[in-house]
């Protein structure tokens, strides 16, 4: 296969985006208020609870992230029913999931992007802001009653504010969740627990003693091995542990250099926090006592899965999917009477809390769409499909009576011949493959009830425990201006890499924890102080701007 390295591609794209920035950012001020020429086909009044329908048939172009699990088909019921209900035909530009981001960059850079650009994760819009290729959607939320209603009802303004750029606007319409959705936890072999007379661990201390007991019974094996370590070592594990210890968004995947400290009303370096040290200490203890396989932080997922499914280890990180798709079928072959559950995330010193952003990947809108005569209709359509209850149910579950039914209590039931994620294993058709619903481009976010409507009973049980836990407030916004962004980008990665690399050394015992203070001063050498100053300056600026506008 032709090898174009990812890095060189990204560099090229970045350079191209910057180049374009020079050409178009001076494009002039758009009069966001005057929409009189853009109201063709729009509804005169559009409100929450109302079905959107364009006054005449209209076509909007959209990018489509093509998932090989359910490749795009032109005859999906989703397209036809959507056209019937809303008068809108979506014309997709189909892009393979494998390289979606690359193509998105190229066509945005070339000015050839469709109007709607879904599957954009918060933060991914930042490189396109300066180029002026995408619309500052925050200027137009007044056209979107359902979106505004959900933000108000679920108190999401703080989360949405984290999307703000330095100009005080945001450029991506995020998917909105009612509550933080925790999916990752540990899978544990309950048959092994039962044989040893142990309870399912509820806290990290419990987990520690359970692992010790397992080790005593099986001295030759590591009771726990772990996965999701590439490219970030301990991706899932350290995130879970870090959150339990109160280190912001945790280590691993969640690691962010700066964590907001409410006490001092300022950001601090996550890697230098006492809570982060406590997390390292815990993981190091597990490794030192040979409870946690030291290869956990370097091996591939395949290797870790093989150790777990062959019965050599008894605890591993999991999410809902992997438990059902990988661990159970794998173990059924080697240890037929094995039982595995996904346990509620063990509680640590931070208490019964969960952290996370309630934002999901969302939608960018091409700047060109603003000049379309159908712009208002398009925004109303987007609002209905992505943010109204009816639209979200339609995108996820399809058409009542055809793909699903509802019982008296409002619960969802798949039609007899339709399957989705194994809920109806004998059915011949699949909700996403054959009908185009529950498609990641259009169906995400929403209420907890809707989210959990496709969960299995055991996953609902897990979610019940997690929902009861308190969701911590999100850190305040600290939008950077263009110069700061550039500086930030130079410091961000080396600092993060260094912290993660040293974290690994501490955990594996290659570096004694007595050198913690030395490590903290090394972070200064990696521009840790300047980095913090940058973030805190941006935060102060945001705060004073906000206070200023509040007073006026």
């Amino acid at each position, binding site marked *: *296969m*032709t090898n174009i390295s990812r890095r060189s*591609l990204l560099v*090229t*794209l970045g*350079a*191209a985006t910057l*180049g374009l920035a020079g050409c178009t950012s001076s494009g002039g001020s758009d009069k966001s208020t005057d929409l009189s020429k853009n109201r063709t086909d729009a509804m005169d009044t559009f409100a929450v609870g109302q079905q959107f329908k364009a006054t005449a048939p209209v076509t909007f172009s959209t990018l489509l992230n*093509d*998932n*090989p*699990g359910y*490749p*795009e088909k032109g005859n999906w019921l989703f397209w036809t029913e959507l056209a019937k209900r809303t008068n809108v035909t979506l014309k997709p*530009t*189909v*892009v*393979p*999931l*494998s*390289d979606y981001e690359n*193509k998105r960059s*190229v*066509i945005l*850079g*070339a*000015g*050839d992007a469709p109007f709607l650009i879904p599957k954009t994760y918060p933060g991914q819009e930042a490189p396109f802001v300066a180029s002026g290729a995408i619309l500052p959607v925050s200027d137009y939320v007044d056209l979107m009653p359902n979106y505004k209603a959900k933000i108000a009802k679920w108190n999401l303004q703080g989360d949405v504010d984290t999307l703000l750029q330095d100009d005080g606007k945001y450029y991506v319409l995020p998917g909105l969740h009612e509550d933080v959705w925790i*999916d*990752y936890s540990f899978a544990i072999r309950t048959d092994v627990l039962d044989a040893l007379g142990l309870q399912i661990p509820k806290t990290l201390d419990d987990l520690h003693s359970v692992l010790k007991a397992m080790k005593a019974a099986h001295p030759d094996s590591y009771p726990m091995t772990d996965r*999701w370590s*590439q490219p970030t070592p301990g991706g*899932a594990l350290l995130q879970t542990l870090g959150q339990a210890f109160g280190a912001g968004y945790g280590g691993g*995947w969640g690691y962010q250099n700066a964590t907001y400290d409410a006490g001092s009303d300022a950001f601090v370096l996550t890697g230098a926090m006492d809570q982060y040290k406590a997390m390292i200490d815990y993981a190091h203890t597990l490794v030192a006592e040979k409870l946690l396989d030291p290869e956990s932080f370097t091996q591939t*997922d*395949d*290797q870790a*899965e*093989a150790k777990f*499914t*062959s019965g050599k280890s008894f605890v591993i990180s999991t*999410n*809902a*999917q*992997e438990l059902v*798709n*990988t661990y159970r*079928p*794998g173990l*059924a*072959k080697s240890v037929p009477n094995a039982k595995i559950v996904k346990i509620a995330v063990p509680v640590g010193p931070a208490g019964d809390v969960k952290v996370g952003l309630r934002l*999901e*990947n969302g939608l960018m809108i091409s700047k060109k769409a603003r000049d379309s005569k159908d712009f208002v209709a398009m925004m109303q359509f987007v609002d209905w499909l992505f943010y109204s209850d009816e639209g979200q149910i339609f995108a996820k579950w399809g058409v009542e009576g055809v793909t699903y039914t509802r019982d008296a209590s409002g619960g969802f039931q798949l039609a007899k011949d339709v399957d989705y*994620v194994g809920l109806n294993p004998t059915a011949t058709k699949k909700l996403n493959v054959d009908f185009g619903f*529950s*498609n*990641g481009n259009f*169906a*995400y976010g929403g209420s907890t009830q809707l989210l959990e409507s*496709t969960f299995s009973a055991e996953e609902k049980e897990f979610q019940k425990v997690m929902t009861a836990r308190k969701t911590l407030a999100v850190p305040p916004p600290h939008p950077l201006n263009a110069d700061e962004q550039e500086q930030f980008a130079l410091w961000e990665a080396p600092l993060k890499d260094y912290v993660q690399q040293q974290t690994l050394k501490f955990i594996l015992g290659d570096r004694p924890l007595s050198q913690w203070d030395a490590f903290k001063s090394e972070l200064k050498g990696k521009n840790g102080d300047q980095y913090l100053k940058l973030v805190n300056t941006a935060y102060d600026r945001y705060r004073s701007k906000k206070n200023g506008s509040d007073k006026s």
Partner: protein
Amino acid sequence: MVTLDTTTVEDRPSTRPAGIRTTRGHRVFQTVNTVILLGVIVVTLYPIVNIVARSFSSDAYIRSGKVNLWPRGFNLTTYKAVMTNSMFWTDYRNTVVYTVVATVVAMFLTTCYAYVLSKKDLRGRGVLVGVAVFTMFFSGGLIPNYVLVTTLGLKNSVWAIALPNAISVFNLLVMKAFFEGLPAELEEAAAIDGLNTYGILWRVVLPLSKAVLATMVLFYAVSFWNSWFAAFLYMDHSDLMPVTVYLRNLIAGATNGTSVGFTEADATAVGANIQAVTIVLTTLPILVVYPFVQRYFVSGVTLGAVKG
């Protein structure tokens, strides 16, 4: 398999002058060399054999890492599933069409260009060579290329794949060197017998250049068969994609979906054996064709190189 034959050489010392008799050092070298090359063979063959074994195995065995050289949980259901998938065959057909069209276009243009450049008395030859070589060092860049292809209206057609990559400068130079090596007297004789330039090229030069032509066809065909980026960039519908993009997406769907924490709808993992089957079916034609063209391949490249 290669076997060491040093003993026979030892037994017949008289047939060789003493000076180049097989020394101890030489034998050590041969042994080490053989061992290393056997290692290379194993390293090269193992992944192929492993993929073939996986393609016949059941998903559960693959996921628990138990499939090495031999299929476990032998079944053909995945082959049936993939081979009845219409999108796979649509994309497969696309690959064949793109490869054939692009190779024909590329061979025509490259041959013409190379033949012209091989004429040493051609005025402005340096400039023409320079134009070609320039593109080896400087390219228009991704977005300008995209804008150009889009503006020319080539998007979503085979020409978007065939035209921008029609002339590989490396192939052009190899071919030019080969043509330069042909005796000028042959062409002069043909000219005296009344052939014009095109006749000389068609009836005299090309029949003498089968080795380099076969090599170039192989080079181009393999690179177009394997290429995915141009199609990925310029095609907007999945039924226009070549099978390489299909395969790439399949593998990404299996790895990304579960390892980066995608949303629930995206976590639909693609079976590990489906990947393996698709890889086998995609690489099969090249693997089958390669050994037959290989002899041209080696002689073609070296001929050009030595005589140039």
